[in-house]
């Protein structure tokens, strides 16, 4: 949408490191380890990866919602929103950003709503906190938001409790809650994972529509490449707490460079391909307390050679601008021979 070269980034994440001290202090889980990316105004940036690769911790770190202890964001990390480092803000300053400028929606609409309050009260909450509106004005805002997210009979639904709504409706309510203050950035952490496929499509379309109407930037965190393909402008692929590839959505799908991205794409069932067993990346994401030496993907990589074990590659520029991959294959493409 917006060209990255001309506009300054709205949200700049640089060298983000979020570590967790494991119980009894026996180890450190490096859940997010040196992650950098930019989010430009109005765009949708997808963050993709398997479970346990650090996507959610990244998103929680941005609003400093990582439970401390056991988690902590290391000094040297930078999360800059409109020129201010969120990591250096005082608690009241941070609260003024949360829900107001940067809002978040969560994976589980069943548990992310408070069961003892009406959805109207919950939607109105951010408006009451940040804009100090009156109760009646807040209620009117809640009804307006419910209408905006496509809930039928908003005048009636505003007084309903979460348990009276279906999963898809609850996710709509979550979105209404997040957007009530017209945030500039919306962080959507697996917004459709808990929903069934038809509802998924509706929710994502709703997010697209609202994004265009409100002109906000969306950080879309998902493990579903199909979601990314349809809704993200650019993609960051994460593996083992690191960014392993970053590219525009087209570039990523046309020319995946990192073997991990390749593996993820091969694992997606395709309607236009001959029927065959789906590809699976062998093995699992290693434990965050003991990342492998060298390239963290090498134990599962079909092309790995000695250099991959010995030394971790930096994020290397591929031919296309804005397309980088953390893989030695960028410099030595002739090595792309499956070893197994």
């Amino acid at each position: 949408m917006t060209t990255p070269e001309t506009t300054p980034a709205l949200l700049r994440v640089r060298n983000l490191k979020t570590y967790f001290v494991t119980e009894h202090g026996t180890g450190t889980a490096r859940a997010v380890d040196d992650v950098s990316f930019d989010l430009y105004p109005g765009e949708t940036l997808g963050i993709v990866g398997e479970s346990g690769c650090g996507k959610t911790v990244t998103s929680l770190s941005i609003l400093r919602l990582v439970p401390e202890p056991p988690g902590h964001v290391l000094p040297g990390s930078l999360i800059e929103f409109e020129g201010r480092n969120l990591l250096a803000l005082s608690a009241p300053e941070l609260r003024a950003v949360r829900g107001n400028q940067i809002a978040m929606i969560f994976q589980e609409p069943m548990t992310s709503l408070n069961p003892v309050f009406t959805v109207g009260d919950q939607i109105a909450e951010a408006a009451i906190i940040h804009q100090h509106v009156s109760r009646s004005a807040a209620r009117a805002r809640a009804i307006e938001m419910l209408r905006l997210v496509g809930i039928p009979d908003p005048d009636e639904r505003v007084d309903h409790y979460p348990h009276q709504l279906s999963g898809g409706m609850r996710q709509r309510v979550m979105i209404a809650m997040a957007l009530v203050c017209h945030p500039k950035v919306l962080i959507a952490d697996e917004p459709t994972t808990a929903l069934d496929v038809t509802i998924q499509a509706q929710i994502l379309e709703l997010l697209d529509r609202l994004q265009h109407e409100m002109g906000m930037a969306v950080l879309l965190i998902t493990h579903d490449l199909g979601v990314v393909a349809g809704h993200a402008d650019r993609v960051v692929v994460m593996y083992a707490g690191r960014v392993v590839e970053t590219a525009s959505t087209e570039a990523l799908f046309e020319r995946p460079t990192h073997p991990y991205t390749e593996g993820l794409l091969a694992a997606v069932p395709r309607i236009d391909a001959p029927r065959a067993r789906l590809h699976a990346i062998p093995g699992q994401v290693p434990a965050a307390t003991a990342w492998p030496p060298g390239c963290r993907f090498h134990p599962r990589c079909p092309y790995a050679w000695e250099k991959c074990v010995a030394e971790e590659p930096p994020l290397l520029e591929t031919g296309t601008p804005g397309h980088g991959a953390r893989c030695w294959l960028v410099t030595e493409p002739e090595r792309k021979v499956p070893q197994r």
Partner: protein
Amino acid sequence: MRLGNWLALFVALVLAAEIARLLRQRATRRERWRRFFKHRTTSWGLGILAFLVIIALAAPLVAPFPPGDPLGIVDLKNHPPSWTFILGTDVLSRDVWSRLAWGARVSLGIGTLGALVAVSLGTLVGASAGYYRRWVDAVLMRGVDVGLALPRIFILMMAVALWDGLPFAALVLAIGLTSWLGTSRLVRAEVLSLREREFVVAARALGAQTGRIIFRHVLPNAAAPIIVSAALGVGNVLLLEASLSFLGIGVAPPNPSWGNMIADGASTIYTAPWTILFPGLAISLVVMSLNAVADGLRDALDPREEAA
């Protein structure tokens, strides 16, 4: 008993029954309150409590004699129940019914206020311990452990000994301040599990501050156990007051409380059993009614029932 007293008593009975009936009738409109009245005992409990509260409030109307004055020390002592003295008189020739009515003020007052102090304090301490965890939790809960290890009666006796005759407010405070320990543990356990729920993270992501999160998001979800523990707490405080008064360190005579009525009547239990039967009955009735109401409240406030 004069005609006026009988009339007042009759009105009180009718009023209590009517309150219970009205509440029950209105309750059928909302699912939650329908669950509250699911058990028949709940309506009875509510009716009995309403009756006793009305008696306490209308003590000057329903009680024919002053509660503290001996009526005739020679011929009216330990008088069995009659039309004039419906519940008899005690060893100091005071009308038991009048003392019971006036004593309801003191006993129910101490019960309610004491339980209020206890539950507020217990909720505050439990919520802080459960929400902040770490050293706050450790300090508060070890304090509670120590408090629970000390016998409550002993602490109260020391307090009374220091003061030499407690005024009403001090007695309420003393009882309240020694009765919150159980509630705090209960609330802490609830808060510990609630604080990990996703809607708490969601509230933080909206920019809510800690106080708002605790009081608006966490505690309302723990309302069921808190309210039930308050209802049961009233009964406990009532019994505690009775035992303190029985030991002679509670409500100072000649002011009647149900506890010191039992204490006064203890010596004549064989010759004039009515002197301790009726206050004992009143205490049992309140405690049983509160238990019934608490049962109903628990059913009404359980979110799991709501989801079903």
